[in-house]
């Protein structure tokens, strides 16, 4: 049983320091850029896909919007100029959100994302499903503390505040946790469903998937999946990676989390290349970036810098030991000359 004092101290802790600011900023860029690409890649087919006289009948669409809690900006008018106005405004908002990521822009972007998705639901895949959930959760978070033009200012404001609980920070932290939870649920559910499937258990599911014409963009994957060892290994690895996301999100072991995330990114790159599900892969990877916490990102950055430093150091030593008559070394940087 939690005592009242313990409960209040936990609540205060929840609202004191915003979590996962880096991961959410990376997710914002991933989700936003992918949505911009959806707008751009379908620009010339926009009327067929979402237009008032396109494949999805407008009257039926308007009827479906009559049910409670459904909305779409596209339902306001059947005219083509209105459709184009909403479409291109949505594109501009998506670009602005990807770059700036302020909270009002997040809300605006969520409205346009939902409007487009509702206009023709038959075009959506699992990646879109995740995107439209995450974009709502992101309304309650701060996504512009990193990788945006105003990021330094946002971080300075957060740092200058006296350390006391704030309602906005509580909401941010709860929403950030839900973003991670939602992403983990996607993989855990997909992994558990695979465990009960006979073809996944037999280790030949990827053979069948790579032979579905809809998802066969090249002949490399079907050829690779003919080999029983590669096929079984890849099939079981898919299940293992999807299930490993749960302990990866919960553990304190950073290396394990990073390892699982790298494997998932590899899996999505394979899906994007082998099956042509590019937006699906990008949306999923954007969600995955929230699984790493801020300390993970900082540690990864430190490690990367150290590795780059080691490589540079090794190169400079090689240059010094170069024999006479070899090509002259490149001019050194001003800082190096001063030292």
């Amino acid at each position: 049983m939690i005592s009242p004092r313990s409960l209040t101290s936990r609540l205060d802790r929840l609202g004191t320091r915003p979590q996962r600011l880096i991961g959410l900023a990376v997710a914002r860029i991933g989700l936003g850029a992918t949505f911009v690409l959806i707008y751009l890649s379908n620009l010339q087919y926009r009327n067929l896909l979402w237009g008032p006289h396109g494949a999805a009948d407008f009257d039926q669409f308007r009827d479906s919007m009559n049910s409670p809690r459904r909305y779409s900006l596209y339902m306001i008018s059947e005219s083509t100029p209105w459709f184009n106005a909403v479409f291109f405004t949505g594109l501009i908002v998506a670009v602005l959100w990807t770059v700036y990521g302020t909270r009002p822009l997040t809300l605006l972007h969520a409205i346009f994302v939902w409007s487009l998705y509702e206009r023709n639901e038959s075009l959506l895949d699992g990646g879109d499903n995740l995107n439209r959930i995450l974009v709502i959760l992101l309304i309650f978070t701060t996504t512009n503390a990193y990788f945006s033009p105003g990021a330094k200012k946002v971080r300075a404001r957060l740092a200058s505040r006296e350390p006391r609980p704030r309602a906005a920070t509580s909401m941010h932290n709860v929403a950030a946790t839900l973003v991670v939870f939602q992403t983990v649920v996607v993989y855990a559910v997909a992994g558990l469903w695979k465990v009960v499937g006979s073809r996944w258990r037999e280790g030949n599911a990827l053979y069948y998937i790579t032979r579905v014409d809809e998802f066969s963009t090249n002949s490399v994957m079907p050829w690779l999946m003919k080999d029983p060892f590669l096929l079984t290994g890849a099939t079981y690895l898919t299940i293992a990676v999807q299930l490993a996301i749960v302990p990866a999100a919960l553990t304190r072991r950073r290396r394990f989390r990073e390892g699982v995330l790298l494997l998932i990114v590899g899996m999505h790159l394979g899906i994007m290349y082998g099956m042509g599900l590019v937006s699906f892969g990008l949306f999923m990877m954007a969600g995955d970036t929230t699984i790493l916490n801020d300390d993970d990102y900082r540690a990864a950055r430190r490690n990367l810098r150290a590795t780059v430093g080691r490589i540079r150091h090794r190169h400079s030593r090689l240059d010094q030991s170069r024999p006479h008559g070899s090509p002259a070394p490149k001019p050194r940087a001003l800082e190096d000359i001063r030292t």
Partner: protein
Amino acid sequence: MFRPALRWTRLVSLTSLLVGVGYAAMVLCLVAPPSPAQEKMASAAYKIADPYFVQSWQLFAPNPPDANTYGWYQIAYVDASGRRQETDPRSLNDLFVGQSQSQWVFPDRVGRIVTSLDEELVNLQHEQIRIDTLRRGPAATGDGSDPAIGPSVSASSVAGAQPRVPDTEAVKDPRALDGLQKALDAAVARAAVAVRRVASPLADELHLPGRVVEVRIFVTTVSITRFSDRYRDHPPSPKIARVGDSHWLAYLPKGGR
């Protein structure tokens, strides 16, 4: 500067936390393995989740498709002598899906129009068979799937389709069956609009020697060679089945509704 009292901040924190826990509980109810308890909880959770937080994450599970699905369109026209003619079936997949796949760096969504229409027609046919079976009563057996190929998991199962709420009461109550049939008829009417909108412009492009009167889209499945047969010189012939059909529908002239 206005500073809310600490107790209000704590109240907001507590509310946020409770909403978060509620969200997590709702999601877990929706994605839990099917069981009598889950069915009851999921229908309640679905009312809250729909439309904003619908969960569908099977992603090629429990089993990937064992057949390829192909859409075909046919056009009927009246020639100069007044006789009705029908074109040979032409592939929709080559037109739409092939085009999307040709730009794999970032494919467009045009191919999805066909794959979702295929899926819709297959589902409608399955649903009609299911209702007919239920009408025949408990003696009728079978799951309503096409006997030639079995209940295929659609190739588009990766799509985030909304889960259908099971209607077990329909077997006992004829009025419930009528309700199912009514819902199905409405879905058929919706699919018919989509079929006319997709197939009619294709009829225009063919420049047929006569007046186009009707269009039709049907769906076939071709089974994938089994893994164990992949190296056989003469693997068993693939099973081919017609699994969905819009039947003939009136042609929609350009600009018509």
